[in-house]
């Protein structure tokens, strides 16, 4: 069987300006800016777009005069990139525009951000929010494997330092940080300090997918989707996020994403050792340690030691989240930050990152989600046509 994405290329990517707050924008208007930027990067004129995916897909169809056009008004990062790839691979679309943005969503700063506050009946009375939900998974890992707050802080300082040197990052120039600096920041939800957690910010992000045939005439070197899949263990923030929830296999919810990663590596015909750069989703520091284990970059329980050994920093064995991620680059609402992992992976493989470019990177892994939310999506990108 030929590779499912053999004829699909990521031809354009764009992140708008990212900021704590974007004056004069709402989520729709910043999504338009992202979409236009990605189309310009791809070198594709708007009338060629025949499918749009994202929360504002319908508004884009109208506003850019794209009708008649396929529209999928969905908002999950990697799953909608895979959906777009399927549209191209099956011939249902020639040019797919995927766009997302968040702005003017977080105004009441006496409470945590609105999308972090679950209202379900079994959690609402206990004052849970995303940091607390993810902390319950992190704590269990610490109980089982002896993972330490210092190891979590090493992840946070590494990623925040990637943002510190990135002029496009919301927190550019805010460092550098040592692990001790992370541990000295105020506690939010133990074991997480403020600097173990993602920020909140605003911005837009978009990608353009097209066929290999069309991409041959476009300016950017093609980036290929080598594999990808999604794992969920159920609705986020509705039940106790216990590490060892299981469903149809013996992989526990704590390793959500493991099955998806196995699927992605099998589709790609690759193994974790083949990966040059890991654009991992970083809502909380612990999630990096967990993903390193879940995806097979180190044995179970050894993610903390893998981090201690200097593997995830610039020049390390597996540089992680090289633009600063959601902790320092941007965390723009619900969906844009998920697309940002894929966009950074594309930029790494093009070799165009202004900071922390991994030289000669051929294969990137990208991810979304996290254990506290009971879902993780994984994607492998490559420079070589699969």
């Amino acid at each position, binding site marked *: 069987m030929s590779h499912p994405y053999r004829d699909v290329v990521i031809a354009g990517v764009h992140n708008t300006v990212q900021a704590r707050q974007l004056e004069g924008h709402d989520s729709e208007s910043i999504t338009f800016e992202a979409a236009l930027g990605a189309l310009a990067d791809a070198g594709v004129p708007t009338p060629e777009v025949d499918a749009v995916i994202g929360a504002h897909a319908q508004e884009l169809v109208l506003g850019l005069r794209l009708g008649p056009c396929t529209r999928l008004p969905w908002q999950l990062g990697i799953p909608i990139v895979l959906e777009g790839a399927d549209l191209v691979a099956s011939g249902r679309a020639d040019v797919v525009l995927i766009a997302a943005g968040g702005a003017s969503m977080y105004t009441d700063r*006496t*409470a*945590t951000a609105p999308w*972090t*506050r679950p*209202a379900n*009946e*079994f*959690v*609402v*009375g*206990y*004052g*849970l*929010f995303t*940091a*607390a939900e993810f*902390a*319950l*998974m992190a*704590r*269990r890992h610490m*109980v089982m494997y002896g993972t330490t707050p210092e190891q979590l802080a090493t992840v946070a300082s590494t990623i925040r330092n990637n943002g510190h040197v990135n002029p496009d990052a919301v927190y550019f120039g805010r460092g550098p940080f040592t692990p001790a600096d992370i541990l000295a920041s*105020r*506690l*939010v*939800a*133990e*074991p*997480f300090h*403020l600097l173990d957690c993602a920020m909140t910010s605003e911005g837009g992000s978009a990608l353009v997918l097209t066929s290999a045939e069309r991409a041959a005439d476009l300016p950017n070197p093609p980036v290929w989707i080598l594999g990808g899949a999604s794992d969920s263990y*159920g609705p986020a923030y*509705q*039940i*106790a*996020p*216990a*590490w060892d*929830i299981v469903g149809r296999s013996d992989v526990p919810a704590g390793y959500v994403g493991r099955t998806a990663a196995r699927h992605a590596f099998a589709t790609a015909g690759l193994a974790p050792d083949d990966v040059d750069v890991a654009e991992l989703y970083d809502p909380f520091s612990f999630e990096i340690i967990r993903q390193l284990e879940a995806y097979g970059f180190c044995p179970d329980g050894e993610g903390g030691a893998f981090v201690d050994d200097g593997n995830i920093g610039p020049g390390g064995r597996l540089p992680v989240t090289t633009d600063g991620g959601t902790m320092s680059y941007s965390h723009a609402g619900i969906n844009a930050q998920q697309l940002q992992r894929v966009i950074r992976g594309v930029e790494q493989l093009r070799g165009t990152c202004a900071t922390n470019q991994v030289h000669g990177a051929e294969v990137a892994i990208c991810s979304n989600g996290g254990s506290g939310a009971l879902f993780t999506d994984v994607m492998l990108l490559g420079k070589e046509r699969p």
Partner: protein
Amino acid sequence: MLEPQPVGIPVPNPSPASKPYWEGAARGELLYQRCDDCGTIALRPGTVCGSCLGRNLSWPRSAGLGSLYSWTVVWRPQQPAFRVPYAPAIVALDEGFRMMSAVVGCEPEELRADLPLAVEFHPASDDISLPYFRPRT
């Protein structure tokens, strides 16, 4: 000292499937939904057993004894109605199920894995009582 939250926090909005749970809580009883056909305990209340697809679901009463499976101590409240610190926790009940709750009646630094716990109920509104857990000796 970790304490129950005052009346005024956001309260649960029971569903048809979970109504017996909250009625039990109002009486000071911790109930859990179990399949009479295969014994599976639901991860959350529903109308069908996820294991055998049976519909003979019942609501036995838990003794309310368990141990601490995981926890966090929150210092930045989700919203101002919550008093900090508070300690959301996953409790492993002796009957073999896990539930979301919060630990009260000890200092945050006394929390540790497998800490023995017992349930107690505190009102969150006129209609709703919330189960909390307190260390037992």
